[in-house]
């Protein structure tokens, strides 16, 4: 369900924007997100940006993974 892929905004012409995703460019609608800027990463679903990436949590998974390893090491050590 709900295929969505991340892309980088490379040009803005409201209500649309040009995004680059994995080496291809395509035009999408940006009316579902607040103040999009060039250089921001958005999630694209059905020709629409549905959310901006939250850079603060970009490394979230990696940190969770590290905490898993740390806990593991504490168990062994």
């Amino acid at each position: 369900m709900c295929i969505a892929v991340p892309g980088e905004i490379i040009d803005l012409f409201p209500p649309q924007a040009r995004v680059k995703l994995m080496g291809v460019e395509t035009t999408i609608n940006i009316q579902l997100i607040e103040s999009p800027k060039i250089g921001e990463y958005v999630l694209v679903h059905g020709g629409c940006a549905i959310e901006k990436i939250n850079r603060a949590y970009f490394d979230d998974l990696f940190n969770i993974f590290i905490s898993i390893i740390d806990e593991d090491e504490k168990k062994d050590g």
Partner: protein
Amino acid sequence: MDKGLARYLINEINLMATEEIKIMEVCGTHTQMISKLGLRSLLAPKIKLLSGPGCPVCVTDERYIDRAIEIIKKYDVTIATFGDMIRVGGMEGSLLEAKGKGRDVRIIYSPLDLIKMAEENRDRNIVFLGIGFETTAPVIALTIKTAAERGIENLFCLTAIKLMPPILDYILKQPSHNVGGLICPGHVATIKGSDYFRFIGVDYCIPAAVCGFEASDILIGIHYLVKQIRQNKKAAFKNLYRRYVRSQGNPIANQLIEDVFKVSCGVWRGIGRVESSTLDLNEKYARFDAKQVFAVEEKSIKSTSCECKDILLGNRTPKECKLFAQLCNPVKPYGPCMISSEGACAIAYRYREEI
């Protein structure tokens, strides 16, 4: 995801699982990714990954398709639909068959393409089959709102947008359910917020996690759930997709949904009526509602020996259905689970895996 990291997590998950654990996801894209990664083979036999009703094509009632076909026959409209919907059979055949008989059925990728289609084909009435879950709802809402603003009079929508919480309630209220943990659909949560799924822990004491769709997202999600189950933290809940999911979701998208739709009782194929589980166009946008504009006779439903209801609910595997691979296969799909390429039976047939 780095192979080494993946192998590490898989190993950890397998070490933690001392007895059988069933984890359900309710999103066709999660189902596809899990199959694509060959995850079941790496987590078997202790961890069983179940595929719930997360495929909007799978759960579209037969009468919806019949209505679409009746509309096209009676009113000679153009039907615009997402790809795999055209193979779904109603009781009177599928849209693909109707197309073969010369009816105007077109496949679109984005609902917003309809605006251009309507403007370029002013002599045709275009009926869009608006199916999907909460993720697609705002895109459909935006399309209808845009059509209204531009005074487009030849675009209509036959909605069948389904909502996740009511069907999850339905599943988790079944006494026979054996779901140990739930992977919540990350893109529904992107729109509705992670809080949308907190009720799972609160009402049903089952750990749940909002997960994305990369290998790392899914593995860390499964690791989290298995750990909570092991530690008996039954009401645990975590948002593991914070790079896109806020606790309250996307306010613009939610406002649009509220502007354009109203919540109604829904009919889920193979399951039946589920209260407050669907979105219909509200009074303000009634003129776009194909159900009202193109009235047709509603047919009564035939019974079928398709086991999709139990398969969707995770109570049976595709192989346990008498029709699987015998009468029902991807070329001639009987039930919804075989129709969509993301349906549990289609994936089981294609990948011949144990589900």
